[in-house]
Structures are given as C-alpha cells and as structure tokens.
C-alpha cells in the first residue's frame, strides 16, 4: 500500500464553457490549482459559481475548453475509478443490495464474487455499516446512504476523491457525524480529497486548505491555509482562530454587492443532461 505519493492534482489555466450556442456561458475562468498528494482541499463558493463544474472536469465528465487538468501527470480524458465521485444525493443502484453496491467497482474490474464481497465487507466496516450489507439503499437513512456511497468509491483505492456537497442534504446532526467519519476514514486511507461546499463551518472543519471561488464565471479569489492540528474534534468550531477565519470567509462570500442567484450547476454540466446520456 504505497498510495501516499499518488493523488497529485494539477489544474492549469482551466477555462470551461457550458451550454449550447447563444446560451453558452463561461462557468470557469482561468482556474489554476495545484494539490499535493493526500491533501484535503475544500472549494468554497456561492451557489452557481462553478465549483461543481470544476469537480466535473476533474472527474472527466466535462471537457476543458482551454487549459488542462492532470492527475499524477496524466491528462484527465474521461471518467476513471482512480477519481471517485460522490454527489450531493446518493447515486447507489436501488436494485442492488448494499454489499453489491459497494462491490460494484470490483465487479467492473472482473474480480470474483467471493473476493469482492469480502473486500466490500471490509469497507462497510470502515464506515460503520457492517450490519446493513443485505439492505437495499431505500431501507437506509440519508446519512447511511452517503456512507455506502463513500465506501463504494473507496473500494477502488482512488487517487483522488471528488465530493460535491456530499453532506449538503443531511440534517445538521448527521452532517457533523459524517464530517468526523470522513476525517477518520481519510486519516486511514491517505487519498487526496477535493471537497465542494458552500458551508463555511464545514470547509474550516475539514480542510488543509480552502479555495474560495467568486460568482460566475468562477475564479479562485483566495486561498486559505488551515493549520488546525489533527485529529480535529467538535471543540474546534468554537475556538477564536476558527471564528476569526469564519468571519473572514463570510466577508469574502457575502460582499456588499448583491449577486443574483444563478442556476445550480452539476458536475455533469448544465441543465440539459440528455447530452451526457447520449455521450457514452
């Protein structure tokens, strides 16, 4: 297990345009990011600013209009199990039981049933759901579904885990638990995480580094390095340094100028998802 040196992300002068003809708009404007292997980076920004577009480009679901996206030196040219994607709402297969959902990536690699189930059980244990392997996703609560989703991505040993507001739809209590769980899991598996959120507390609690994005067209307007010691506990969020940084982020995200809320973008692009459906 020498995944430690894997997971270096280089985004170089990335521009992305979405939409057809006259409705075409620039979602990302000249974004350059460099992420070290094993780093936990949060992208913080108002809704519609293009942070999900950034994630979609890294996942390989969206094409760069200009510039490049590279992971460990290789140009991203399409989806790959090395870059696991977690959406805000789970995308578990409703017709597969939890165990087979988690084992799906191994099935795609042609690994025999017995071995993939065994490894899937290991990951379910990691996220605390070993008693639910025979349940269907519809039986689980929202938090449990996201835990299965994370286990399903992790079974592929991704170099980068891309998370698009994964806890955004959960209630506050569950969200805190999930954040702690994610940090504990991340401490064990040493993967690079790019985590999209609009929740300042979440970003401050989780990340090594926060990238703040401007409204559309999305640009990185500020980079904040967080040196809070790990492991981090709930007491962190009441510390003076945390509050100070939070105030700073609030000022960045809510400047005096009023911004008209924009249509939400997904990692799969703009509203017309049928184009993607036909693209495979």
């Amino acid at each position, binding site marked *: 297990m020498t995944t430690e040196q894997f997971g270096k992300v280089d985004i170089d002068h990335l521009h992305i345009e979405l939409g057809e003809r006259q409705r075409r708009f620039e979602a990302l404007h000249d974004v350059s990011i460099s992420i070290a292997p094993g780093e936990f980076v949060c992208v913080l920004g108002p809704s519609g600013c293009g942070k999900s577009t950034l994630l979609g480009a890294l*996942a*390989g*679901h969206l094409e760069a209009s200009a510039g490049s996206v590279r992971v460990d030196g290789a140009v991203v040219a*399409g*989806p*790959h*199990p090395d*870059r*696991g*994607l977690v*959406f805000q*709402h789970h*995308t578990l*297969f*409703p*017709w*597969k039981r939890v165990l087979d959902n988690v084992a*799906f*990536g191994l*099935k*795609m*690699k042609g690994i025999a049933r017995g071995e993939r189930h065994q490894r899937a059980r290991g990951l379910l*244990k*990691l*996220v*605390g*759901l*070993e*008693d639910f392997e025979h349940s*269907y996703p*519809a*039986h689980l*609560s929202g*938090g*449990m579904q996201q*835990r299965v989703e994370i286990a*399903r*991505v992790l079974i*592929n040993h991704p170099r980068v885990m891309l998370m698009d507001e994964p806890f955004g739809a959960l209630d506050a*209590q*569950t969200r805190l*638990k999930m954040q*702690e*769980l994610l940090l*504990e899991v991340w401490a064990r598996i040493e993967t690079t995480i790019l985590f999209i959120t609009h929740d300042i507390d979440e970003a401050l609690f989780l990340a090594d580094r926060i990238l703040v994005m401007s409204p559309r067209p999305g640009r990185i307007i500020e980079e904040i390095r967080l040196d809070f010691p790990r492991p981090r506990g709930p007491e962190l969020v009441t510390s003076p340094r945390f509050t100070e940084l939070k105030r700073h982020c609030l000022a960045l995200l809510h400047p005096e100028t009023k911004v008209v809320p924009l249509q939400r973008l*997904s*990692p*799969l692009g703009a509203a017309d*998802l*049928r184009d*993607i*459906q*036909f693209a*495979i």
Partner: protein
Amino acid sequence: MALSSSFRSAETDLRQSTKETASPQSLLQSLRQQSALPSFEIILRQWGRYGLRLASVAACLLLWQWASSTHLNLGLITFQNVPSPKEVIQAAWTLVQSPKLLSHLSASLYRVFAGFVVAALAGILLGMLIGRMRWLADVLLPPLELLRPIPAVAWIPLSILMFPSSEISMIYITFIGALFPILLNTIHGVEGVDSRLIASARSLGSGRRAIFTEVILPAAAPSIVTGLSIGMGTAWFCLVTAEMIAGQFGIGYYTWASYTIQNYADIIVGMLFIGIMGMGSSALIKKLGNLLMPWYLLQR
C-alpha cells in the same frame, strides 16, 4: 470498530430504542391492547370491501338475468337474442367437460406465447438501443411511428398474403399487437434513467456494455414490465381478432364459430375465457416482475 460504533449511535440506536425501553411484558401488553380492537375493525372493513366487490358482480349478473329473461328491448339495444347467465353457465360447464376446450385453449396459448416472446425480445432490444442512441432513434422511429397507429386487424389481409401459413400470420398479428406497448415503454424507461447513475457507474469503471447491463436495463426494468403487461393484454386482444378470421382452432375461433352456428350461449362462454386468459397472463407478468424486482416495491 471504535470509530464505527460512535457513528451508528445516531441512527441505528434510534431504531432500537423503541425496543429497548419497554420491558418484554409491558410490550406484549401494549401490543395486545393496541391490536385487539383495531385489527378486528380492519378485518371487518376488509371483508366489507370484499363483500362490496362481490355484491357488485352479483348485481351485474342479476341485471343481466333480468334483462335476458324479460327479453328487454330498449329500441337501440335489444336483449332478445342474449342468453341468460344460467344458460351461459350450463354451456361453460359442457365446454369444460369436453376435450375441445383444451385444444382451443392450447392453440390460442401457443400463438400468444410465440407472438409475445418475439415481441418482447424485439421490443426490449430495440427500445434499449433507440433510447440510448440518437442516430438509431432517427433511423428507426419514423417508420415505427407510421406503423404504430395501424390496428392489428388491418394487418390481417396483408399478413395472409405475406405468410405461407395462416398459423404464422396469426402469430405475426399477435406480435404486432404486443410489440408497440413493449417498445414504447422500454424507450420511455431508458430515457428516464437518472444520468447521475450512469455518471457514477462510469466513474466506478463501467464500460459501454456494463452501463447497459448493470445500469440501464435494471433502471428501465419497472417500465419494461409495465410494457410487457400491457403488451400481453393487447396480444390476446389481437390474437382473438385474427382467429376469428383465419383460425381453425383457438378461443377466438370458437367464439366466432358459435355465432355462425347460432350457439349464442357459447359466444359468451368464449368471451369469458378470453377475458380470463388475458387477465391471468397479464397478472402473471406483473407477479413475475415483482418477484424479479423486490427493490422496486420498497421505493414507492
């Protein structure tokens, strides 16, 4: 696992808490108190509903008996030549006891089965491809849309000319009848697949073929089963029409032959058998669908 246990406390323990707080005895007691009266009421209400349904059928039969026995003539519609329920039951009993029934039913069943299976294979395969490939949709949908409104009956003369035996032409008509509901429901199901599921599958390493078999087919399955169930109904509907014109055996032929030899009670017996067979086979499809998709019922 230390880290896992702390996380389960929030969600799983909530589920268990109801069990753990009450002692077994008090739980049993409260169960008895709760279940005794309401369950009786529920059973009564259930039986009440069954009773109502039964009464509705009985009322229809009575109305029919009355109309046929009094030779009711309303001008526009007359019951003068309509046999009474009693005569129909007698005729049905004679048919059930005779060996003819089996040969009629098996002839019809065979044709429906043959036409339906071919329609299911063609409909699901074409529907999946049309739903996923825009160019194929452009190539195949215009002629299919042109053929779709043509009723199966209108195909009878041409199919007699086109096929060497009347048997194959009848199977063809059944096929045409079943094809379109299956095809259209499959296309609808495939187009409705959540694109996020496809994106996730691709990110987890699925190729084109795996996307079809692992994501699109199961995601479209509920819609496909609906199409199969409707297609089964139309298959019977079309078969009976074909048999009336071209058949020598079969339940549709039996119904029409009863008319030509003026066995009026047998007409209704034939009609009832068509209804029962059609309903039964559609229900069978639904049942099989539910068995194959236990996850689907959970979601609703």
